[in-house]
């Protein structure tokens, strides 16, 4: 199949990452198709989170971390090049973390903060609309509409995580990175987030690190299996979970690793 250049939200080539002398990612090449959910799976220490954090330069703040290789946004913009500021990059590539991390501010301020600093709203009314729209898309608006001024840390874990997703989408990113977004949540809150991921993929490209194999199989169209810093296999989720090409992938997803 011939892939169109612009069908990929992010293209990467020959990516290697070192922490000091220790190699964390070893020559990984992978492309992420637009409007797909891609799960990155693999045992702890396999490099999946390190790789995810390379995609919006979250590793920049770690002095010992050295990132090599090619990273292209929409097939053209060099993610590590001079043509894009890191702030602009993160406007396009948002992130949701393992532990919900709302600012110790009101629910409204949490979502309004990004659009304000990025100058996305010229009037208060526009800002209100962005906040409302983002909370709606994150499936949280109905639950919080009467207490927008309450402090966000008072919300339940699942609500806080959806607030973080609302905060991420408020700045209209193209891509959302998620690093184990449900690992601190109960099954009902997890199901709500998974449903939300499914809805969000209509408008965003989502790359998610997860330890839950069943979550990867439920929510993603593509799955990438990492082991010891290498990308072992990347393909359609339905294929990976029925007949993976590599023995190592089969062993890992069937629980024969060790």
């Amino acid at each position: 199949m011939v892939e169109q250049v612009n069908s990929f939200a992010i293209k990467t080539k020959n990516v290697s990452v070192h922490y000091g002398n220790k190699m964390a990612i070893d020559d990984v090449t992978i492309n992420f198709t637009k409007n797909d959910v891609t799960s990155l799976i693999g045992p702890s220490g396999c490099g999946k989170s390190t790789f995810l954090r390379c995609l919006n330069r979250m590793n920049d703040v770690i002095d010992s971390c050295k990132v090599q290789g090619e990273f292209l946004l929409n097939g053209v913009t060099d993610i590590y090049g001079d043509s894009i500021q890191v702030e602009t990059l993160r406007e396009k590539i948002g992130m949701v973390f393992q532990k919900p991390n709302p600012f110790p501010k009101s629910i409204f301020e949490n979502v309004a903060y990004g659009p304000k600093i990025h100058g996305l709203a010229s009037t208060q009314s526009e800002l209100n609309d962005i906040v409302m729209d983002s909370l709606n898309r994150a499936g949280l608006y109905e639950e919080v509409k009467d207490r927008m001024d309450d402090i966000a840390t008072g919300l339940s874990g699942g609500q806080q995580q959806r607030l973080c997703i609302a905060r991420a989408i408020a700045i209209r990113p193209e891509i959302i990175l998620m690093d184990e977004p449900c690992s601190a949540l109960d099954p009902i809150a997890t199901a709500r987030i998974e449903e939300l991921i499914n809805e969000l993929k209509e408008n965003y490209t989502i790359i998610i690190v997860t330890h839950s194999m069943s979550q990867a199989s439920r929510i993603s169209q593509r799955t990438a299996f990492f082991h010891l810093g290498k990308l072992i296999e990347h393909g359609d989720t339905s294929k990976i979970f029925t007949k993976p090409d590599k023995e190592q992938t089969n062993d890992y997803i069937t629980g024969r690793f060790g």
Partner: protein
Amino acid sequence: MENTHTDKNFEQKLKQLQDDLIKMSEIVEKQIEIAVNVIKTKDSQDAQLTQNLDEQVDVAERDVRDLSFEIMTLHRPVASDLRLVFTALKVSKELERMGDHSRNLAKRAISISSSFDDELIEQMYSLGRNVQSMVNQVLDSFFKKDELKAKTSWNQDAEIDKEYKSLLKNLIERMHNKETSVVDEGTKPILIAKSLERIGDHATNIAEEVIFNITGHYIDLKKSDFE
């Protein structure tokens, strides 16, 4: 050697599933062997034995079904484990049908009179032996995960069909010629031959499941694959 599961309980259940299938296969193979012998011996005790074994086959099929259901519910198998459970369910169904055919053909074989044409008996017996060999090959390919053997046994079905058609033609010709010994037996020899031919068909279905279990694909097998 295949790596072992980190979940020992799951590992044990997958092993149990394979053991249950091996046990079921052994019963069905024995059933077919006895039924084929009954074509010649007309031994009513042996025919009754195929009936008794059929009850064991039904129990074995339920065991495979229940265990597969339990594994799917509690362990949510994926990849090679999922394919094994899926294949086990389908293979057990095919085996159960083979068992039914064996029981029926043995029952009919004892009711054929001893004056029935020897050449036709030989022809039925030979068909039976070839079917028996095909079943043995295909089950062996399943437990040894041998794709080539599965394909080879699948190919044996064409020979079996040919033999079945030749037998049928022979029977019909003799009926046309009003050969008393053949006409008196009515449709019984035809139904026996049909049961054998159907066992062969179930064996080809198993061969297709074996190939799926190994490769993850159902392939559209054609004779040309072997030419």
